[in-house]
């Protein structure tokens, strides 16, 4: 047996592809935390709602998939803005623990609503993309698309934050909220807009995940916790840190899963996370 066989390479490549989607998941959460200083515990549940919206639009109402995806992104963006206006804004000045509890409440609320409205049985959009066979390796086409779109989404967000007036204001408000009115900027509007962008990123993630996973009301639990861990590992609120952490985590899961068993990949990743929390509790690129 070769030391560096193609199965290992396949695991590494799959890890990179998984890293892309994890990075996208972490991006929205980090944006919200970095700008508004609030953690959306219910972030993955927004994605779950988005996945259902794709299913209903495409499989029940027979919209073309592209239109269903667009609707999903817009719907979850609107949900993000609504979440801010109805839930976050009233507790902006409250203790962090209260803010966590209230978004935690939204998590259970959304799960319960999904269970009542959509039932507990698994749903699938039934779009199966082929696996690409390259040099004896099998690469999931769905994952490849997810990776590409996630990367594209991140670059678009980066350019938006870097190049535009609104984007600069979003970065500025995270540094000094109090003087934004002196610039002619309403902090309120920036927060609603940021929440909508965070929602849109969740919607984009929903479109990509729906190609790979079945949909059920508790699907958020299978990637919510890992998203938080990626964010914390990178330094909560630090988008670059989250990006790096996503790829580290994904390699643990994928390569660890190759050497042992798939479940062991997650165990290794979580052990690594716990170790890192002792060594660098502020995260890879976190401040204090």
């Amino acid at each position, binding site marked *: 047996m070769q030391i560096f066989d193609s199965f290992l390479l396949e695991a590494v490549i799959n890890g990179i592809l998984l890293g892309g989607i994890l990075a996208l998941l972490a991006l929205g959460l980090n944006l919200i935390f970095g700008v508004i200083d609030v953690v959306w515990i219910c972030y993955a549940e927004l994605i779950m709602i988005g996945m259902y919206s794709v299913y209903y639009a495409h499989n029940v109402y027979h919209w073309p998939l592209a239109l269903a995806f667009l609707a999903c992104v817009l719907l979850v963006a609107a949900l993000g803005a609504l979440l801010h206006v109805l839930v976050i804004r009233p507790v902006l000045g409250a203790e962090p623990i209260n803010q966590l509890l209230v978004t935690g409440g939204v998590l259970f609320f959304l799960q319960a609503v999904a269970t009542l409205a959509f039932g507990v049985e698994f749903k699938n959009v039934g779009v199966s993309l082929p696996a690409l066979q390259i040099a004896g390796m099998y690469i999931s086409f769905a994952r490849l698309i997810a990776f590409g779109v996630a990367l594209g989404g991140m670059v678009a967000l980066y350019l938006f934050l870097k190049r535009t007036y609104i984007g*600069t204001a979003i970065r500025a408000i995270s540094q000094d909220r109090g003087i934004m*009115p002196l*610039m002619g900027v309403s902090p309120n509007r920036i927060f609603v807009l940021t929440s909508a962008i965070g929602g849109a990123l969740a919607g984009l993630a929903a479109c990509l995940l729906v190609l790979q996973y079945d949909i059920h009301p508790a699907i958020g639990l299978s990637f919510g916790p890992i998203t938080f861990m990626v964010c914390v590992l990178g330094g909560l609120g630090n988008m670059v840190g989250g990006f790096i952490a996503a790829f580290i985590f994904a390699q643990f899961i994928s390569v660890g899963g190759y050497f042992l068993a798939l479940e062991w990949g997650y165990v290794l990743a979580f052990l690594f996370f716990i170790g890192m929390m002792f060594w660098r509790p502020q995260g890879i690129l976190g401040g204090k």
Partner: protein
Amino acid sequence: MLRLENVSAGYGSFQALFDVSLEVNGGESVAVIGPNGAGKTTLLRVISKLLPASAGTVSMEGWPLNDVPAHQVIARGIAQVPENRRLFPKLTVEENLKMGGFLAAARARYAERLEFVYSLFPRMKERRAQAAGTLSGGEQQMCAIGRALMSGPKLLLLDEPSAGLAPVVVQAIFGLIRRICAEGYTVLIVEQNIRQVLKVVDRAYLLETGRIKTSGAAATLLASDEIRKAYLGL
């Protein structure tokens, strides 16, 4: 241009301003001087609507600002350089300036005003790609003034521009403020450094424990016994 009539304001049960009336005419430079805790910063916060007045009226060019939200005050032509500069430390100098010109009307004239600010503060042009948090105190003050100028204000409010700066730098900053006044800007400046500021402005109001004590031409105040004894130690 700017008129305050019987303005009172405070924080909770603490009243910081009592019946303050003052006026700034177009083209004038006016100072509000007074000791620490007199309510000078509160006064500017009221004008910018960051703090609501509990009584009285603030009006700009004859229009009352009572119902204008804080983020629209700048659209009325009032830009403020806040206490302690308050730059966005992680944004570059140029991005800070860009934030000062956030308003739609200011965006259209961004290039022209940036050029003006850079001609006023050539140091800012050298440091434009540097994070604002890494600038020296004097440079930060220049950047903060430049940021306020980016909106093309009719009235510039300056809150303690000399605070926390070395004496040599204070001299330089007051020299720059003199130049800005000479450019035709109307300026209202709040300052503890009474001797320096009275040499720059046309008129001044003396604010003590939230009340206007006296007012007059800067040269007259500088020569008055009241100011000389209490504040200049002469």
